[in-house]
Every structure is written in C-alpha cells, then in structure tokens.
C-alpha cells in the first residue's frame, strides 16, 4: 500500500529513439484493479480484529481514536504526499465533521449515521466552496492561506456560544450503541475500522487510476502536467475536496469516540500532530500514514515521560526522517525490502542460470549452449 509505482503497474510501451517502427508511448491503467478493494477490506478487517481483541479497554479507546486520525492522514497522503498540495486545512475540516456531528445530534436530534452522512455532504459543499477559491493560489500562497484557516476558525469556535465556546459540545452519540460501554466501544470501533477501509480503498483507487498518474505528473512538474493536457485547477480541486471530506469523516469518528468536541480539535496543534503522523511514518505511504496515526496517538497517551516530552521526540524524529529518509519510516522499509528482494531475485537468477546450464549439460552432453539461444 505504499506509493504506487505507476510505471510498474501500468503497461508502458515507450518508443526507443531511432528504432524502426517504434510506437507512441501508451500508458494503460487497469480498469478492474482488485488491489484497492482488497487493501480496503484487509485494512478494515485487521483494524476491526485488533479492536475486537482489545475488548473495549483503554488501549482500544486509544486505537479507535488513532483510527479516526488515520482516516484523515490517509487523505493527507493523497493531498500532501502524492499530489504535493501544500494545504494545511485538515484540522479545520476535522472540525467541520466533529462540530457538524455534535450540532446535528445534540440540537437537531439526528442519529449517528444520519449525522455522519449529513457531515459528509456538508464537508463536500464547504470544501468545494473553499477549494474553488484556495486552489487558485500558487504553492506558497496556498500554504499561507490554509495556515490562516485554523487560526480564525479556532477563534470563531472559542467565542461562539452556539458551538459551546471553550468547553465545546458534549453528548455526541457513538456510531453503534451496544448493551454496555464495552460493547458500544467495540462496535463503534469496528464501524470506524470499516470507514478507514473505505477511505483506504478510495484513496488507493485514485492513486492507481489515470487521475493518479495525472496527479503524479503534476506533482513532479506542473508545466509538464499541463502540457500533457492535465487540467491543473480541476485536479487540484478534486484532491482538496477528497482530502477535506476524509478529514471531516475522521473528525466525526473522533467526536463519536470521545463523546465531546472542543475547539482544541481545530487548533494549529492538531494540524501539527497530523503533519507529524504523516511525515514521520511516510508521507507517500497509506500503510505508513495509518500506522503513524495509531502509533503517535498511542505514544501521546502511553507514559507520562513520553506524553510530556512528545514534542521533543516528534521534532527530533521529524528532523532525522527529513535528513535521512524523506519518505519516512515506510520509505526506509520499502527501500530495505526492495534491496532484499533485489538480492533474492539476483540469487534466484544465478541459481536458475546454474540449473539451466546443468540441465543443458546433462541433456546435450556438453557445450556451453551459447549457440542454442
């Protein structure tokens, strides 16, 4: 589930310069790609099994919270890692999801599922409106504009009595009410795991599609993408909307798990935590982003030493990652595994060649076989 090496997956027949009859480059993307669905089901199943095994313990609550963050970071992989869209508005859309859920449930009597569907629609509309404006801005301007968003939305929430001011809104319903607290936590956790699986499948599907290739071209060089006929504004907007909607779903999950929404969710601190979850684990890896979210959420609540010094630890980890392996822990593992599999492949080739040679020697009774190729 790491960044798809599109060139490996797709069929590319690049022309050889000067070679007779070289065809124009054709880049086919498999229309019925089973990988996204498989990855989504796998992710949901593993997360659900882990949460079921924790049986409503405190650790289970922490992991479910991590799953909520993971839904957001999966979207950030597409936005920040894959498309290199430097937007820092995810905490704002988490707030849209969390506050939307809380308001609809506590003030308008919506059920948990109804409010989830409603906030997805709300996030879609809001992100389309904001995205239509902010995605016009070039790189640094987009980053600056979206840096300002958490600042003023946070202040808006803290001074708004309707949104519960500093104390926020409590009494948010869990997704799936069980017989007791433990059953409720497990069932809601499983539901959150399913949402994470869906998010994984959608993002992976986009990354492995023709649109994903266009995004990759844009990320590498916008002019190159434009010259290939990619509509930059449209693709930027689509990525922004998808990332924002997933952030809103993540926010709804967090609200449902914790039962309360406070303005802290909208603050720049949340945005910083999200960035660390993505960058330390691997900004181009969906698996890395999921694990990063769960592990960092666990670390921040595990021991008092770690929770007190989490800023220092995260900062040092980020600097080491940036210097040593910019693609994060997932990138380092990928490279390590790649080297290992390359070694295995080389050994296999050597062994195969030796076997072939022996076989030829055995059947033909001598000769080096060079002329038999």
């Amino acid at each position: 589930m790491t960044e798809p090496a599109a060139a490996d997956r797709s069929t590319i027949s690049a022309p050889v310069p000067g070679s007779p009859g070289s065809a124009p480059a054709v880049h086919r993307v498999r229309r019925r790609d089973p990988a996204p669905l498989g990855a989504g089901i796998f992710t949901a199943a593993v997360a659900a099994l882990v949460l079921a095994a924790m049986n409503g313990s405190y650790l289970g609550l922490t992991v479910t919270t991590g799953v909520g963050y993971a839904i957001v970071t999966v979207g950030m992989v597409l936005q920040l890692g894959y498309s290199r869209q430097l937007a820092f508005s995810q905490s704002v859309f988490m707030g849209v999801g969390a506050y939307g859920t809380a308001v609809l449930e506590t003030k308008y009597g919506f059920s948990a599922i109804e409010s989830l569907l409603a906030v997805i629609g709300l996030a879609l509309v809001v992100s389309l409106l904001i995205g239509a404006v902010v995605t016009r801005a070039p790189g640094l301007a987009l980053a600056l504009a979206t840096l300002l968003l958490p600042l003023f939305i946070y202040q808006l929430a803290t001074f708004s009595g309707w949104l519960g001011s500093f104390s926020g809104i409590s009494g948010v319903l869990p997704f799936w009410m069980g017989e007791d607290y433990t059953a409720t936590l497990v069932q809601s956790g499983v539901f959150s795991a399913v949402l994470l699986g869906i998010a994984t499948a959608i993002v992976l599907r986009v990354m492995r599609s023709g649109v994903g290739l266009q995004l990759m071209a844009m990320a590498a060089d916008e002019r190159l993408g434009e010259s290939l006929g990619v509509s930059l504004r449209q693709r930027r907007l689509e990525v922004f909307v998808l990332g924002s909607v997933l952030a809103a779903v993540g926010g709804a999950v967090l609200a449902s798990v914790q039962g309360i929404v406070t303005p802290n969710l909208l603050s720049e601190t949340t945005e910083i935590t999200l960035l660390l979850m993505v960058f330390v684990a691997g900004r181009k890896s969906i698996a890395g982003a999921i694990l990063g979210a769960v592990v960092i959420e666990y670390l921040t609540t595990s021991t008092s030493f770690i929770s007190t010094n989490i800023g220092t630890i995260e900062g040092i980890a980020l600097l080491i990652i940036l210097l040593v392996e910019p693609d994060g822990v997932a990138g380092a593992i990928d490279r390590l595994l790649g080297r290992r599999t390359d070694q295995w492949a080389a050994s296999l080739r050597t062994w195969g060649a030796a076997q072939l040679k022996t076989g030829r020697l055995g059947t033909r009774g001598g000769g080096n076989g060079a002329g038999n190729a």
Partner: protein
Amino acid sequence: MSQFLNLFAAGLTSGAIYGIFGACLAVWFRVCNVLNLAVGDFAMFGAIGTAWLVQSAGLPFIAGIVVDLAGVGLAAWLFDWAVLHPAFDRGRGAHGIVGVFFYTFGLSLVLEGVARAWFGGDVWGAPDIWSGSALSVLDFHVQRAGILVIGLAVVSGLALWAYLRFTVSGRAASACGESTLGSRIVGIDSAKFRRRIFIGTAVLAAVFGIVESPLSGYTYLSGPTLSLIGTVAAGFASFRRPGRAVAIGLVIGVVESLLGGYVSSSYNDVLLYAILFGVIIFRPEVLGLSAEPA
C-alpha cells in the same frame, strides 16, 4: 480621539511584534529560500530563559541577558551544523517545498519540547528594561516597554533594509538566495551567509522576546503563533523585504487593534485573519506570487 490614539498605540505595539518576526523571516528567506518557523520559539527562549536565569538562577539582569543570548546563538549554530549544513551544503535529505517548511518546523517542536520540560507551563516575563508607569499625555497612554518594542522594530527593520541594500555583504547575501550555485561560482560562501544570518535573526528574535515579554508574558507555547503571524507579515513583503515586513506588521497590528476597539473585541482576530486570507487568495501578487487565471 483619545480612544483612537490609544488603540493606535496598542496596535503599533502588537504590530511591531508581527513586523520584527516578519523581518527576521524575510531576511533569512532572502538568503536561503527557507522559512524560519522557529523564530517565535527563539523569542520565547529569549523571554523565558532570561526570566528563569534572573528569577530562579539568581543571575543579575544583564548577565542573564548575555547568557541567554549566548545560549540562543549556540542553539542556532548547532541546528545549522547538524541539520542545515548536511541538508543544503551536502545535498542530503528533503528538498523543495518540504525543505522550505519542515526543517525549521522540526526545530520549533524541539525548542517547545525543551522549554516545556525545563520551564514548565507557567507564564514568564523578563524584568522591565525601562521600568516605571505608563507614559501619559492627556488621555493618551503608552507603556514604556511598548515604546521600546516599537523602537526596536523600526530600528531593526531599517538596519536590515540598509544592510541588504547598501552593503557589499548584504548584496552577496541576496545573491545566495537568487542562485546558490551562481553565488558559489563567483566566490560567495553561501553556507556562511546562511549560518550567520540564521544565528543573527535568532538572537534578534530573542532580544525582542526579552524586551516585549513584560507586556504580554510568554509560555512554552508562545512561539508558533508569533512565527505564524511573522510568516504572514513576511509573505506580504514577498518573503524578501525585511523593511517592508516591519511596515506590514505595523499595519496588521493597527488594523487588529482598531477592529477590536470599534467592531468587536472578541472577533477582532477572526476579522483580521479573514481579511488577510482574502488578500492572499484574491491578490496573491502582493506576496510576489501570481494567481492562475480564473
């Protein structure tokens, strides 16, 4: 009229804070095209470090300032040696837009973490440099520390502007930002300029923290907000003009104060950020960047 003047003076004081951080960011960005998101944390260390050295360690005020500034300078040098030098001189690690933001973002996290572990979550303020009650002319009142803050911001902005515009060293520093390779070809040591200006702006931010902290007080979390507002002020100065960053910072501060006085004291920051957001989106050319055609 007196209300307007008082709001104006308060706005100039807070604007000077934005402006000086904008200037620090702009001058370093001009040299190496990287945003110093830790500049607010250096100010926080200046303020809290001096307060701690004087109040808890018992050092005299001047000695506390000297030790604190030396510590900030050393921290900046260490960061350059351990992170920036390998990244930008030896070509290791992340580059491009990630490098622009995230190296100093990592430093900011480390500085905050160290400050939290060392100084705790209390509010600290260095002793007054110019002690005494607020200066008053009729109904117009201004804090003495506020006058120092505005003065320091204006002097620093002018000095940085003059350095970049009128000195050979300043022009060489600017050349590094235009093209690192080109500047090296003509014999300019870009690493030296990057390091010196990084350390210099870190110390300047710390001085500012010491002068300003009697007014507002600092906690270990004060840094990021200062850096963020400084980034916005620097952005409006095209990230490259420190003098203009100070002027923009002063304007932002005055607008914020007037909004608070005449429109809403609760929503003044919301309105200010909304205005800045609108300017960035609809007039990105003021940032030295152009919008795409609609």
